[in-house]
């Protein structure tokens, strides 16, 4: 019980491990491309929690800056990925990524 009351680094790492595992599960098992994207966002959030937790207990600002850049890259990634998903839907009439198997129309 004395491990549970003061919030330490392991608590944050545990939450981040859960988010990483769930995100990986979504990327591996779902057929809908948008749910796969949600899994990627979960993985990026897990990485961000790790960066900030290590940054807090290290006392440096490097992890904070890195997580800021991760958020920016995640925004760019989501925009591009949804544009690609919309194009896939235009061509294949579905967002089922297991049906996307041709490289040419």
């Amino acid at each position, binding site marked *: 019980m004395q491990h549970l009351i003061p919030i330490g680094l392991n608590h944050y790492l545990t939450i981040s491990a859960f988010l990483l595992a769930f995100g990986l599960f979504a990327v591996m098992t779902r057929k809908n491309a948008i749910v796969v994207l949600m899994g990627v966002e979960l993985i990026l959030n897990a990485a961000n929690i790790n960066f900030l937790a290590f940054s807090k207990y290290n006392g440096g600002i490097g992890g*904070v800056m890195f997580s800021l850049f991760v958020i920016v890259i995640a925004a760019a990634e989501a925009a591009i990925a949804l544009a690609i998903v919309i194009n896939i839907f235009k061509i294949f009439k579905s967002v089922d990524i297991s049906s996307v198997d041709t490289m040419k129309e």
Partner: protein
Amino acid sequence: MSNLTYTLIFYIFAAITVFSAAFVVFSRNVIYSAFALLFTFFGVAALYVFLSADFIAVTQVVVYVGGILVLLLFGVMFTKSIMNTELKSDVLHIIPGTLILAGILSALLYTFYTTHTWKPSEIELHGSIVERIGYETMSHYVLPFEMVSILLLAALIGAAFLARFDKSDNKNL
């Protein structure tokens, strides 16, 4: 705020984050997943506040909840008509997926809890870090900052270019 209250609030936000993330993954309805993702992002933002990264928490709410989640909902509504009941998303490779989920989770937790205890630094981050982030962005990290702004501009122009409608297949959608 007493130590016990702090701990209790932390556990509430941790539970919100983890359970809504599980709902995102295990729900079969895409709309339900998207709205559960909202709670995950808010829970993660609250955890950022606990990690004394207040600026990152606000950025998380603005960018993720205000931007990425709206984009994902747009994606859901663009690619399916919202009224039909075909919003279920199928599942494949369920057994290897579950194995990897359990394997990664148990391996990480085993590593965290059985290896050597962490040694936190003497100086932890305390209070607001907005001012430090401002100084660091304009001194140490000015080159990555400018590069990421160019990358974001290029990515958004590219996304708008990719997602535009052609006149020829406009009537199909």
